[in-house]
């Protein structure tokens, strides 16, 4: 790192730090709002100015995980005999729905969350696996019309995906992939695979061929060399690609909204759908969003070392 000496440099440094802090505030404010609102009592969620100090509650999460219905005008709630966690959500004209035998029903959120995990993890795995093998082929073998093929692969990203939403919906309905996990997995894999090919090609190009050639002369087949040498060497690239693919698949909203409604619905279209049922309870939406942010945060955190190396990949001569 260069030592900062002159006045101009010091000023420039401060301006840069100021800009970074400003950018951080802009980017982190929504996350702070989500985090805070997820623990607020409902009546403090939408105050102006926002309430900063409050006694945190778990009621938003309880509401998130339970099925709620609006009370009809003449219905009464047996408030006294309800358990504690039911009592804390018996506000604003809502109650927890129960069957005749008094069982509490789970809301749709856990299964939507699970759907999100299934779809995002499977499609990320498929996209990265296919992308890595394809990139390896392009990187190591003479492919006729290589540049054209690569451009074709990239061109699948040039169209805004929503443009094809209606035809995709009709096709999916025709083949029965509507509202299935497989349908979404295929869709997200298709989105991500072109991106994965391009990203992985850059990483694999950087791995010297001599590594594999050394393995080849040492008695390994091309496949063994790929698994024993290329994959470990490309770990950084695979991690970076996986994070990007996972985020794309995890956050996808438009297609999930159109293609699914119940069985295979993912969390993104589910969370806002809660706005429409009764009065919008922002605390529930915030708690749902907060939980939804966690897997990406954890995944990225686990792979952070690879990612940092991945970001600077190619910038540093080894």
């Amino acid at each position, binding site marked *: 790192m260069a030592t900062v000496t002159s006045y101009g440099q010091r000023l420039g440094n401060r301006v840069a730090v100021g800009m970074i802090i400003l950018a951080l505030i802009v980017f982190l404010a929504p996350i702070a709002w989500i985090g805070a609102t997820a623990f607020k009592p409902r009546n403090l969620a939408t105050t102006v100015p926002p309430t900063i100090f409050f006694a945190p509650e778990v009621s938003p999460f309880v509401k998130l995980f339970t099925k709620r219905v609006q009370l009809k005008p003449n219905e009464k709630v047996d408030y006294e005999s309800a358990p504690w966690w039911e009592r804390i959500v018996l506000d604003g004209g809502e109650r927890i729905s129960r069957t005749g035998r008094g069982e509490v029903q789970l809301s749709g959120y856990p299964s939507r969350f699970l759907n999100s995990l299934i779809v995002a993890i499977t499609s990320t795995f498929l996209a990265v696996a296919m992308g890595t093998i394809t990139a390896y082929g392009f990187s190591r073998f003479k492919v006729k019309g290589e540049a054209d093929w690569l451009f074709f692969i990239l061109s699948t990203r040039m169209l805004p995906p929503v443009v094809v939403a209606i035809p995709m919906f009709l096709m999916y309905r025709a083949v029965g992939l509507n509202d299935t996990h497989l349908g979404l997995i295929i869709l997200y894999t298709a989105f991500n695979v072109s991106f994965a090919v391009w990203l992985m090609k850059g990483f694999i190009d950087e791995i*010297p061929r*001599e*590594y594999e*050639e*050394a*393995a*080849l*002369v*040492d*008695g*390994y*087949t091309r496949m*063994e060399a790929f698994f024993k*040498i290329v994959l*470990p*060497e490309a*770990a950084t690239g695979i991690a970076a690609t996986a994070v990007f693919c996972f985020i794309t698949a995890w956050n996808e909203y438009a297609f999930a909204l159109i293609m699914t409604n119940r069985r295979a619905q993912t969390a993104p279209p589910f969370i806002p759908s809660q706005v429409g049922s009764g009065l919008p309870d922002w605390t529930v939406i915030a708690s749902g969003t907060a939980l939804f942010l966690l897997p990406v945060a954890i995944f990225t955190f686990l792979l952070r070392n690879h990612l940092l190396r991945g970001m600077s990949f190619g910038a540093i001569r080894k």
Partner: protein
Amino acid sequence: MAEIRLENVQKYFGAVHVIREVSLTVKDREFCVLLGPSGCGKTTTLRAIAGLEEVSEGRILINGKPVQNLHASDRDIAFVFQLYALYPHLTVFENLAFPLRATRIPDAEVRKSVTSVAESIGITHLLKLRPGALSGGDMQRVAIGRALVRRPKALLMDEPIGALDAKLREQMRTELKRLHLENGSTSIYVTHDQVEAMSLADTVVVMHDGVLQQVGSPSDVYLRPANLFVAQFIGSPVMNIADAQLRDEAGKASVLVHGAAFEVPREVLAAVSSRQVKDMALGIRPEGVLISHEETAGARSVSVHLIQPYGPFDIVDLNVGSQTLRARTPSGFASGKGQQVWARLDTTQAHFFDKSSGVSLGLRLG
């Protein structure tokens, strides 16, 4: 251990003809060095033997068996790459064990082989490290160890010490020679450094433009270069090459070099005229240009143009006719530019070439 034979090997990269009809036999236990300028096809030849490059035509035989259609993994040959190609994600031990793990060898045996190789190349203290933590010399030792650990039929090396600094190169050269003597594996070594080639090789193979120029012992290629290319490529400082005409005047034979006449034995006349050469070139190494301060028989007076001190000797450029001639002298022999000295040619060190084909006439005098 094995004998390696190339028979009329040809290789094209698209329209580029990189190996042209190369035929070569490397005997069992021989240390053969492919020497040539960059782009001469020596590395491609080596890679073809290893199976990393397919040949377009011709046969490659190991112990008499054609292998040109076998995969690299089926040829039982080891390859040392210029940039080591050690796997960064494995420790030195695992790098050394890697070739053994390709076959199902019990762990205890792997351990034994790795330890014994590590001992012979002196890297036992490095086994637990990763390649990133090693110096260039140690990395190359590990790379060579990885090649030897399997006891392959042959050891191919592609400029294995070219990336090291000069001092380390010299040390590794000695080590390579010792390892070859101890292991005695058939070795083919590619380099563009003639010092490496001369000091390591049993046989030097000089290549240029994909064509074998000369195959011979180090002293062969130095003392009896087959053509002008070999003559100029081998030897440092470079051999003097000049257009030469023979003259026969007053019973004395002489050769005109850059327009200046030097006396030569009469037998040259007959030998050259019998070959019917149109234009001739004379090649003489700097040590074949003898200079003295006093007049000697057959010497002519020349002036010093430039002095380059090398340490143990000086290289002195002499004004001869319209050009210069390099001579090797003891250090400090010539005092400065413009000094008059006497120079003659040691005809026993002279080489005569057919200028149009570049081929040596094979004349040896004295």
